């Protein structure tokens, strides 16, 4: 079974530039998550999709971050404009459903450095 795919793996940009990350979840997984992991901390959920609808975006900084999941499969997360404090690893995860008995499978992450 193929895992969660993410690209790019690394990205370096200057502040005020824009950046986009892509995620392809495990086939058949209805729920997709984007987490932000700052160095030395645990991941923090930014947004959660159930199929192609947003079910939890309460911790997404909506003035600069946006995300979409077209056709209930792939997803993109965008930051525009980026700030220094956005430097982090952005992790995508997927699960069969939102229920706790369905484990979340994580991708390798995209490491973003904002200069």
């Amino acid at each position, binding site marked *: 079974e193929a895992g969660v795919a993410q690209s790019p793996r690394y990205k370096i940009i200057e502040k005020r530039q824009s950046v986009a990350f892509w995620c392809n979840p495990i086939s058949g997984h209805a729920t997709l998550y984007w987490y932000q992991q700052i160095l030395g901390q*645990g991941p923090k959920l930014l947004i959660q999709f159930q199929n192609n609808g947003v079910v*939890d975006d*309460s911790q997404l900084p909506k003035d600069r971050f946006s995300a979409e999941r077209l056709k209930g499969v792939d997803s993109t997360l965008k930051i525009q404009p980026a700030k220094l404090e956005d430097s982090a690893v952005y992790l995508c995860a997927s699960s069969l459903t939102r*229920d706790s008995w369905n484990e979340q499978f994580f991708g390798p992450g995209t490491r973003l450095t904002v200069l």
Partner: protein
Amino acid sequence: EDQVTQSPEALRLQEGESSSLNCSYTVSGLRGLFWYRQDPGKGPEFLFTLYSAGEEKEKERLKATLTKKESFLHITAPKPEDSATYLCAVQLDRGSTLGRLYFGRGTQLTVWP
């Protein structure tokens, strides 16, 4: 405020020296407690889910236990390949945020030969 606290922040063990990692939580409506392993440059890898106090789960040299306020990850006779950051997370029984995992900061474990 919901909180997940892991201790110690870092732990160095000699190969074969057993120890425990702690995850304490102050939340209301615990739906599940999760343990993940994270290697450098990789995403977290699922280890266990615990649902109720008294529950225990084992996998190779790892054993996870749960009480009403904390969880322990026991590592028996660790090997260098067990070196990683171990993350604890909770999922809460709240409809609007169902699915969201609240993570602790992790314990960085180093096992030396």
